[in-house]
């Protein structure tokens, strides 16, 4: 134990020094939100030269994806080391060098289900921010009932011919490639005729149209496929077994959504309460104050849950239901938090350009996306509790 701990404290020291030397001041203390993030891709846009440098230095060490194997462009760190890196980055408030669904979603799927060729082809490009990936799951008629999807990939010998429509493609209109679920066997039972396919969005027949949300943001697109030719090499895993890959990835997505909510970005509700109300004001409106206190209690509980999930991971004792639990509770808490923040600012927070209104209008999306919270409740009641179908 002691010697591993010693190793780790040496590692921490090394990381700390490296970060001090390599993370430029303007890559620190940057509000970490979707707009400020570097997303990579063929049309990559860096916030500024310093942040570009920061990204390149991190990519060089494989620390854009610290725990991926080095041969795929990763840093090859173990869980403890990766955590130390994250902690040290947080200590100096370094901005995330590269944000991407490739890192969060496709990478883990390829590591688990991809062929060696696919790993060597795609993972380094993700790590180096060369390709920005979109996720193509939901369809207009297949939301909660994802497996009823109708986008069709027809086997044409050396390629698939893809026709159909996806919706809720995160930043689809800004992405280079998309990993999709497509139906390859229309005759099979609905979970058994689905495959997991990688499609280049620059290919003829692919069109992505942005969707405007309540907040005015355009974080999603509709994506249309019209006679798109996709090479067979782009099939991940076994044909007609794409649902296995999807299930695996949905769990990742839930965990991400479950943890992102627990640490609110930007000014916290607690601090806003002090700033807007002052210590005396907190006594004047006991109802709102109690609501804020309850949201804080939820936030602290969720943080502990994140810590516990990490510890369980290290101990190899993660419950398969934790992602659903965290996704459900964190997204609802987030909705409640943004509502309390709206109330706190009263008339001033009705400003559609302000961050309070923006976050409040965006929060419900996460209760629906990534498997609606009703789906999480179904998962928990059916699988965790073993309650029977009607």
């Amino acid at each position, binding site marked *: 134990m002691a010697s591993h701990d010693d190793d780790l404290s040496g590692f921490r020291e090394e990381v700390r020094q490296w970060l001090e030397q390599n993370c430029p001041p303007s890559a620190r203390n940057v509000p970490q939100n979707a707009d400020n993030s570097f997303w990579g891709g063929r049309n990559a846009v860096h916030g500024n030269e310093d942040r570009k440098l920061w990204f390149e230095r991190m990519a060089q060490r494989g620390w854009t994806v610290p725990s991926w194997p080095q041969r795929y462009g990763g840093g090859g760190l173990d869980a403890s080391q990766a955590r130390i890196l994250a902690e040290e980055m947080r200590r100096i408030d370094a901005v995330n060098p590269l944000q991407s669904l490739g890192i969060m979603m496709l990478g883990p799927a390829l590591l688990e289900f991809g062929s060696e060729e696919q790993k060597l082809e795609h993972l380094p490009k993700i790590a180096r921010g060369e390709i920005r990936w979109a996720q193509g799951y939901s369809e207009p*008629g297949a939301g909660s009932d994802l497996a009823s999807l109708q986008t069709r990939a027809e086997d044409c010998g050396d390629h698939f011919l893809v026709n159909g429509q996806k919706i809720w493609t995160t930043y689809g209109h800004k992405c280079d490639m998309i990993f999709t679920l497509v139906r390859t066997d229309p005759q099979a039972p609905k979970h058994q005729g689905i495959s997991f396919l990688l499609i280049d969005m620059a290919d003829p027949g692919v069109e992505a149209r942005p969707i405007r*949300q*309540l907040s005015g943001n355009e974080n999603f697109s509709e994506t249309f496929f019209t006679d798109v030719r996709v090479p067979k090499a782009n099939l991940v895993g076994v044909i007609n077994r794409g649902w296995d890959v999807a299930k695996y990835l949905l769990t990742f997505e839930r965990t991400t959504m479950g943890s992102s909510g627990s640490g609110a970005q930007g000014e916290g509700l607690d601090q806003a309460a002090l700033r807007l109300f002052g210590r005396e004001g907190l006594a004047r409106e006991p109802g709102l104050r109690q609501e804020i206190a309850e949201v804080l209690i939820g936030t602290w509980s969720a943080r502990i849950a994140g810590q516990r999930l990490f510890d369980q991971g290290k101990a190899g004792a993660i419950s398969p239901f934790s992602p659903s639990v965290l996704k459900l509770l964190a997204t609802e808490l987030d909705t409640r938090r943004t509502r309390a923040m709206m*109330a706190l600012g*009263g008339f001033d927070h009705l400003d559609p350009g302000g961050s309070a209104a923006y976050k409040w*209008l965006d929060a419900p999306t996460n209760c629906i996306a990534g498997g*609606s919270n*009703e789906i999480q409740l179904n998962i928990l009641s059916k699988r965790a509790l073993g309650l029977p179908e009607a």
Partner: protein
Amino acid sequence: MALVLTQDEVMLVDAAKGLLSREAPLGMFRALRDSGDPLAFDPALHRRLAASGFVAPNVAEADGGLGLGASAAGLIMEQAGHVLAAAPLLSAAMAAGLIGKTASKAQKDTLLPSLITGETTIAAALDETARHEPSVLATKATRNGEGWLLSGSKTAVIDGFGASAWLISAEFEGTIALFLVEQAAAGLEVDKVDAVDSRNYAKLSLKGTPAMRLGDGDAGPAITAALDLGRALLAAELLGICDEAFDRTVAYLKERRQFDRVIGSFQALQHRAARLYARLDLARGVVLAALRAIDADDPEATWLASLSKSVMTKLSRDLLVEAVQMHGGIGVTDAFDIGLFVKRGRAAGELLGDDYFHTERLARDYWRL
């Protein structure tokens, strides 16, 4: 009065519903929003509503109005909520209340006729804090010969941008007084304020601005009464908004299919919808009770106004979140109408005090804290 609608009221509701659905369908509000029109309402629509007697129906018969009281104003607001009609109905009714309770005969004769016809719009500027707290009053009035000068600032002025005039509360020698400031007044700055519901709001800045005082007594009780009227009317509008959002949601539950069934056949959604139905049913009585009490000059009116605003703000918050959730992905797109109800619901809940404010007001009043 009984907590059921009279025959006359049923006819009024039908008339309002008919006119609004013809002249102000929901798409009109969306088009207005997208146009970016700074006035944020259509004066022509407002005059058409006025022509049917829907603007300030609470002006007393003695003052040349219909004398239909808060009940009629509330029933019209409720119908306006169904289509999100953007017209300065709330400010007109509040102005009518304030003028009716404070102004001299001559002042009434000058102000009310054009208010009722919709030719002028008069906005009440009573709030000075972001979170509604009418006890805060820093605006001051001073004498200036025969007239008055006002200095201070106001926020959250409903229908306040481009108004013909503003009714402004100010402190004058230790009492609360009410003043009218005209559009062209010197030292007056009116800033339009954008809000999520794309309605008309303004902030006012007053620097030695000439004003006319309405009446000459303590305007405190009239201001409280106008705020209570506004609260009950907002509660009525929220009731219309909630009814409409709920009906659309239930219809969607019967239509949207997932897992080879309409999603409205899922019992978990059914029970959640049924709870909302029950709460709506209860709230309907509370809103009507508040309107009736105002019309009866019941001493409980102020208390019932807070109750109605508290109940409807809380219910609308819960109901509109459920409406979005039950619509799924489509519910969070700007292209789909449910979001328009969500945004207006939030703003209407916030204006003149949210549920936290009113619950606290009730508690303090009840326990004499």
